Structure formats: structure tokens, C-alpha cells
């Protein structure tokens, strides 16, 4: 962000359009990507992103001007929203829009499809860690702040999830063959 967060936050508090525009430019794609990877539905990700910013707009005064708190709050809303959707649709079809993420013409379609199905078999918490670290590219420190977990724990848990995911993928591959 070019401008200091404090200045933008003052604009957010006064509900000034320019401030919200800046926030959307910086965060909407991240939130969209997070919800899409979590839920697997493009339509839901679009609705979810709107809902997340709408909830943020309503409760902006609860966050006291710190960028870390702002991001944490934003991701908590996105996470709760995604988990809610995931639980409701667990037994239906969570990868309804997979083609959007992995098009059939992709030369690596098979690998991507396998990894995608592997992620979808992970537990909610594990999936969140993999999305934040490997897909969204957050640092361990940022994840530790977002999820309120010590950095050492984040590191060890992510390593464990990596091993677990590899095992799941192997078993999926075995089943396919």
C-alpha cells in the first residue's frame, strides 16, 4: 500500500469512498482467492467477498487503526464465512467450479486435479494453513498473527500438513491407477 494505513483507516472510519476503494484494490483479490480455494465455488467466492467487505464496513470502528488487526478481522470474517459454507455443503459437492481453477486444456490438468482433490480432503484447519502459506504466500509471521498461533507452532503444523497432503495425494493416485 502506497499510503500509510493510519491515514486510510481514518478515511474508512469516516466512510470515505477513496479509502474503501484503496482497501478493495489491496485486499479483494486476496479474499476472493482465499474463499474460492476454501469453498471451490466461484459464485460463492464472489458473494462471499462482497459479504466480507460489507461486514467489515459495518464494524470498522471496532478495529482500532492497526493494519494487523484489520487484516486479522478481515480473514476471520472470510474464514468463518467459508467454513460455514463448507459445512453446509460438505456432503453435496464442494468442487463445483473446479474447471474455473483448473481448466481442462491445462497441460498439468491431471496433477492439478489430484492436488486439488487432496486439499479438499484435508481438515478445515489444515486446509486453511495450506491455503494461507502455499497458495496465498503469507509469511509465517503473518499467519501467526492472523490465526493467533505462535510462529513455531505454525511452522511445525504446516510441515505436518505438507506431509499429510503428500500422503493423501499418493493414496488418490493409487486409487486412480
Amino acid at each position: 500500500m502506497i499510503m500509510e494505513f493510519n491515514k486510510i483507516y481514518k478515511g474508512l472510519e469516516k466512510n470515505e469512498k477513496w479509502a474503501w476503494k484503496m482497501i478493495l484494490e489491496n485486499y479483494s483479490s486476496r479474499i476472493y482467492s482465499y474463499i474460492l480455494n476454501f469453498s471451490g465455488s466461484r459464485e460463492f467466492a464472489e458473494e462471499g467477498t462482497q459479504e466480507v467487505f460489507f461486514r467489515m464496513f459495518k464494524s470498522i470502528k471496532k478495529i482500532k487503526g492497526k493494519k494487523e488487526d484489520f487484516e486479522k478481522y478481515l480473514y476471520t470474517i472470510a474464514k468463518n464465512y467459508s467454513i460455514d459454507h463448507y459445512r453446509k455443503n460438505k456432503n453435496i459437492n464442494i468442487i463445483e467450479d473446479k474447471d474455473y481453477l483448473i481448466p481442462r486444456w491445462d497441460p498439468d490438468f491431471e496433477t492439478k486435479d489430484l492436488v486439488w482433490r487432496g486439499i479438499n480432503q484435508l481438515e478445515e484447519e489444515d486446509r486453511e494453513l495450506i491455503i494461507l502459506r502455499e497458495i496465498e504466500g503469507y509469511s509465517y509471521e503473518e499467519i501467526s498473527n492472523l490465526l493467533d498461533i505462535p510462529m513455531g507452532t505454525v511452522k511445525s503444523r504446516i510441515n505436518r500438513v505438507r506431509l499429510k497432503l503428500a500422503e493423501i495425494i499418493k493414496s488418490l493416485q493409487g486409487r486412480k491407477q
Partner: protein
Amino acid sequence: MKEDLKIKILELLDEGKFKEAGKIAKGSLELEEFYREQTLLKETLKSFKIRRTPDNLNEKILEKLFEEKEVAKDFEIPLLNSLLKIFSFPKISFSAALSILTLTLVLIIYSINPIPENLSYYTYKVKSKIEFYLDKIDSAKDLFVFMIDTKREEVIKDLIKKEANKKNEEVKKWQIKTEKSRRELPYFYHLFLG
């Protein structure tokens, strides 16, 4: 031992040190496979990142947010809102509350005990102030009545007469006083009395 090496490989891959991770894996079939597997996994996961939102999503969100703000504005009661604003300012609300309290106290004192014998100096001051303002209000009321009165000219004549009588009485009082104190009127006094 191998588990530790796997964790080391993961850490190096995480830091982007692919060559070093490859060196550790070299020599062991299991570790080499693990290295290939994790490198592929890392690359594939990275490709899932969506860098752009769908067209117009930001505009849609902005529109929704500010539409809501406008709706909220329409439902505001202006008077209540302004009052709340005044009382939300701490200094003003404090002084307003203090003045309301003082006024209530004064009115209670005044209604319970109009002119007590042992009235303190401050109560007396407050009472006289109130009387002064009540008098002012009374005069304002008279003035208002006078303005809407149809027999205004007669009233004016009465007032002039009253004023002249008052003046005469003043002169007489002064003369009596001067006779008693055997003092003469200053030469300019007549200028003021006409």
C-alpha cells in the same frame, strides 16, 4: 533420521533453497522421491492463487457499501441526531448537566421558601437575578401587548402623563431633601430636569 531429513528438505524448499534441498536428498531413493513430490506440490499449489477478482467486483462492492450508507442516512432523525452530537461532546454535556442541576436547585429553593429571614447572601443574589429576569420578561410581555393593542395612542398619552408625574415627584423629593440638608441644587441640575 530420515524424518528429520525430510523436515530439513521442507524447510529449505520453504526458503526457496531448492539446490541445497536437492543435495540433501541425493543418494537416497526415498528422499529423492520426497524432494520431487514436494517440489511439484509447491509449484502446483502456487498456481491456484487467483491474482485478479472477476470484472467489476470491486465496483459492485463499493456500490453496495455506499448504497447502504445512503439508506442509513435517510432514516436519521435530524433533531435527535444533532442533540446526540451535542451531548456526545464531554465538556458541553458536563456544563449542560451542571446548569440544569443549578437551575433546578434554584427553582426548588425559590418555590419552597420565597423570602426567608435568614436568607444567605448568595441565595439573595440568585433570587434578585431571577426577579430581574422575571421583570424583564414582564416588560417584554407589556411591550408585546402594547404593540398589538388597538388603542395604542391612548396608552401613549397615559404613559407620557405617568412619566411627567414621576418627574414632578422626583423634583419635589429633591427639593424636600435639599431643604432638610440646606443644600442648594447644582446649577446644571435644572438642565437635566428641564
